[in-house]
């Protein structure tokens, strides 16, 4: 009797556990289990390509602007910050404290892990927000893009970062027949765009889904668009504090020079 009754008790307990677990599965609304694959955040990487129109930029060749002015490039660097990924519902995921110094030497920039979901756009700013722009750059370890770079992309005479730094040479002769000497035209060309007032936001449409694998998003920066409404023949040098109109003009071109592949 004893053994039978204990067996019945065991069976009852077993059934009880079964029933309660059944209840949990069907009635308890609390922990909705989503398949692990779609819930997991994924690494997102930005890939930047300096381009001229449809073609990629070879830093050893010479180009012509739309108006036919010949030029070549020796430097094409800029800061990107304030990066946000826009979800389909309009909400934004901010990549906090991420400052990218985009240079032609480095193609890929990891943004870290981004929540899974459907996205419809990318936002970022060219330059550095005012608060960070005027912090002491010597605080940063030399692994940080905000530390003093070689060559420098920070002004010490007017403390702040250069948001976009484009340098090269160009042919300003009236006949366009300047002779390249050691790979250089006669006229030095430089665009050092900084100052808080030239901080610009860029907004790009791009549908992408973050689910099961890391994502790489390729962004192109078009030098032709940088020079929209700029005549390189006469407008080829600005330090932002000098030739201020030209600095503003090219800063206003920032939002239109980026496209996403």
């Amino acid at each position, binding site marked *: 009797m004893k053994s039978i009754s204990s067996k019945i008790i065991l069976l009852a307990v077993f059934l009880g556990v079964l029933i309660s677990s059944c209840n949990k599965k069907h009635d308890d609304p609390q922990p909705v289990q989503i398949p692990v694959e779609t819930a997991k955040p994924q690494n997102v990487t930005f890939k930047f390509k300096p381009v001229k129109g449809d073609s990629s930029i070879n830093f050893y060749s010479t180009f012509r602007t739309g108006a036919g002015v010949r030029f070549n490039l020796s430097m094409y660097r800029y800061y990107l910050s304030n990066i946000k990924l826009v979800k389909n519902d309009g909400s934004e995921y901010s990549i906090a404290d991420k400052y990218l110094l985009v240079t032609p030497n480095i193609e890929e920039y990891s943004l870290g892990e981004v929540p899974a979901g459907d996205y419809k756009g990318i936002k970022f700013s060219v330059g550095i927000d005012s608060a960070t722009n*005027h912090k002491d*750059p*010597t605080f940063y370890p*030399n692994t940080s893009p905000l530390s*003093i770079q*070689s060559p420098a992309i920070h002004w010490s005479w*007017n403390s702040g970062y250069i948001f976009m730094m484009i340098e090269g040479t160009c042919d300003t002769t009236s006949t366009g027949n300047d002779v390249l000497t050691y790979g250089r035209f006669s006229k030095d060309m430089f665009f050092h765009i900084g100052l808080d007032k030239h901080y610009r936001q860029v907004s790009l449409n791009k549908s992408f889904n973050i689910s099961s694998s890391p994502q790489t998003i390729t962004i192109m920066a078009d030098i032709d668009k940088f020079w929209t409404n700029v005549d390189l023949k006469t407008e080829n040098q600005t330090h932002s504090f000098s030739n201020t109109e030209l600095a503003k003009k090219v800063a206003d071109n920032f939002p239109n020079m980026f496209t996403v592949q």
Partner: protein
Amino acid sequence: MNSIGINQKMLLINIRLLLAVLCLLVLNISCKKGKDEPLSEIINEIPSNEEISLKVPYGFPYPDVPADNKPTQARIDLGEKLFFDPILSRDNSVSCASCHLPDRFFTDNLTVSIGIEGRKVERNSPTLINVAFQKSMFWDGGNPTLEQQVLAPIDNHNEFDFDVNEIVKRLQKHKDYSTLFQMAYKQAPSVYALVRAIANYERTLIGGTSKYDDYNRTMNSDVFSESEYRGLSIFFGERGECFHCHGGFNFTDNSFQNNGLYLTYPDSGRARITQLPTDVGKFKVPSLRNVEMTAPYMHDGSISTLEEVVAHYVGGFKKHRNKSLIIQKLNLTTQEQSDLVNFLKTLTDKKK
């Protein structure tokens, strides 16, 4: 007699032995001073890294010091060594002290300073005495702190024309600096510690030992000559009204003013920073302490003597549209002008 002779011989041998031992000892010590030995084994007294107080004279406030760069003897010593070391310039030819000479009250008495390869700097080099009390750096105030300021002459094409990261590499290879940086900032030579060490040293360059300071401390006007005392009344009174801009313990209100130096300014001054047309031709009001010894004057060194500076305010200024309204023609006799100059000369610190 003989025994005395032997004794004398013994003494001689003893002395020779002693000398030999001494020689060996000296040799041994000089060996230790060899170039490859770390510095910490050479110097007898390791400078303390305990926070110390800056010596602030009567009537001066204690300077603002950043929390991460409190003065210590190790930091001051390191900063001083760096200040005088041309390792900071591209071709190892120019140091901070090339334009800020201690013997010349930390200026160079040149119209504009000279950087590497004889290149001319844009502006006149200001004294560093009392630089700890400056609210912003440079004639246009474009840099906010003494620490960050250090970067500017380094990468200026006309000054050191160099790259601060390259300096750090040089310092890391140097036989002494790694130890000194460790002692001062507990790290290998870095941009962070480099700029802080130099600023730490510069904050110790405090004056306040002038005849005027003697007067200010004792209120005994007998320290002045008749002429100097008349000059003081002009300076602080309605005849000169100089104190409006050049007031306070440091003889500056740290503002930016256009003093009518030109009708057209080749150097736009403060406007280069603010981009405001109303700031064209404005420059930082300089401290007048040690002004006797820091000629020539103005941001571009365009006025050679104190007499000419006073003459500028007596009626030599131009009516630039941004000229400070405070600057009005001073109606001073020749005697009063020289009285004013004589007073200004009482602001010179006694050399230590």
